[in-house]
């Protein structure tokens, strides 16, 4: 029993050894003038409502980011799931598949200059980048799901005469 608890404790020590070493090393380097200083980082983290360079606090920035993610992600999730399921239909897959597969190889970040021209600087272009980032994984996942599962389900329906 004691041996088991010793093994568990040793396991926990091993788990925290590297982070502990990492932060200790960072603290020592910060004392020697390394930037970013661990202490300044901690100061910002423990005062999350304090204004930073007049651009708002950590909390305000986080709320703004979460709002943008919320909008972009919801639209992407909705469109991705719907399109993914529609990819079950072979004609739909043939029609959209090649274009979407080609577009997905353009990194989302490369869309930024074009989006800035078309949508201007602001929430519209930010939300569109988030949409592009989240759309493809959703479409892929549900596209695969609709193909794999519905083939099996189709056979079951056919057995029952549907």
């Amino acid at each position: 029993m004691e041996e088991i608890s010793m093994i568990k404790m040793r396991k926990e020590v091993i788990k925290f050894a590297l982070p502990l070493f990492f932060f200790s090393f960072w603290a020592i380097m910060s004392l020697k003038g390394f930037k970013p200083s661990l202490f300044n980082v901690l100061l910002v983290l423990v005062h999350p409502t304090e204004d930073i360079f007049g651009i708002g606090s950590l909390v305000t920035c986080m709320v703004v980011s979460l709002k943008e993610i919320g909008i972009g992600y919801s639209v992407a999730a909705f469109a991705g799931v719907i399109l993914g399921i529609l990819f079950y239909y072979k004609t739909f897959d043939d029609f959209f598949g090649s274009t979407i597969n080609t577009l997905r190889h353009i990194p989302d970040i490369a869309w930024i200059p074009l989006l800035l021209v078309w949508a201007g600087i602001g929430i519209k272009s930010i939300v569109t980048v988030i949409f592009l980032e989240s759309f493809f994984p959703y479409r892929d996942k549900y596209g695969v799901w609709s193909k794999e599962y519905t083939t099996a389900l189709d056979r079951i329906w056919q057995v029952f005469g549907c």
Partner: protein
Amino acid sequence: MKRLVKILLPILIIIGWEAISVFLIKNEFILPRVESVVFILMHPLQDILGCGSLAKSAVISIKRVLIGFFIAALVAVPLGIGMGWSEKIHDFFYSIVELLRPVPPIAWIPLALAWFKIGLASIAFIIFIGAFFPILLDTIHGVNGIRRTWVESAYTLGANDRLILYKVVIPGAAPTIWTGLRVGFGIAWMCVVAAEMLPGTTSGLGYLIMYSYNWGMVDTIIAGMITIGLIGLAMDLVFRAVETRKFKWRRLV
């Protein structure tokens, strides 16, 4: 018929694009005509605004991505094999990996600039961060996914740990490691474009499209995007071709 359906949407997009550009928007600075973009793509060696040609920018970006990607693979694959194979190594590195993994590679950019200044080192660092985690996780997953029966059979036949690692674990995990490398390369390619868009960079495809944005040359932006997409697609096809050829056995297991 099937082939026709497949190329129908791209054709419709091109026709729609040309029609909107000519009849609706009528402004090359917002939506250029198709032929303006095609012209740039057909003359890849022509200098663009004094910042080099499309081909030269592409070569520079590919060179950068290869440097960052190879360093990431050199570190992530052995570490992943170690983490997957030994519980002690896994426990030692696990917390720090889980702590750093959710940080997007782009969020490292300011820190990379502060540490390595503007240049190849900071770009390679961002690519390294981007490619490292997918390669590492897939390697761990690949090693963990090795069937117990394979390892036990090898032990029964008298193999030692070292032999099992080299003859069973690494070859068995190779398909998943390769998938990790493919995913990692895709992210590395995204990271190089992001890193080249930073102020201070003076070459590469990311720089070219950002520079064109500053000059309002939307046709060059679109040509640059298409080039980025085509290179990404080509690299992906190479990875997939090797996957199909070398790891065909995976489907049989």
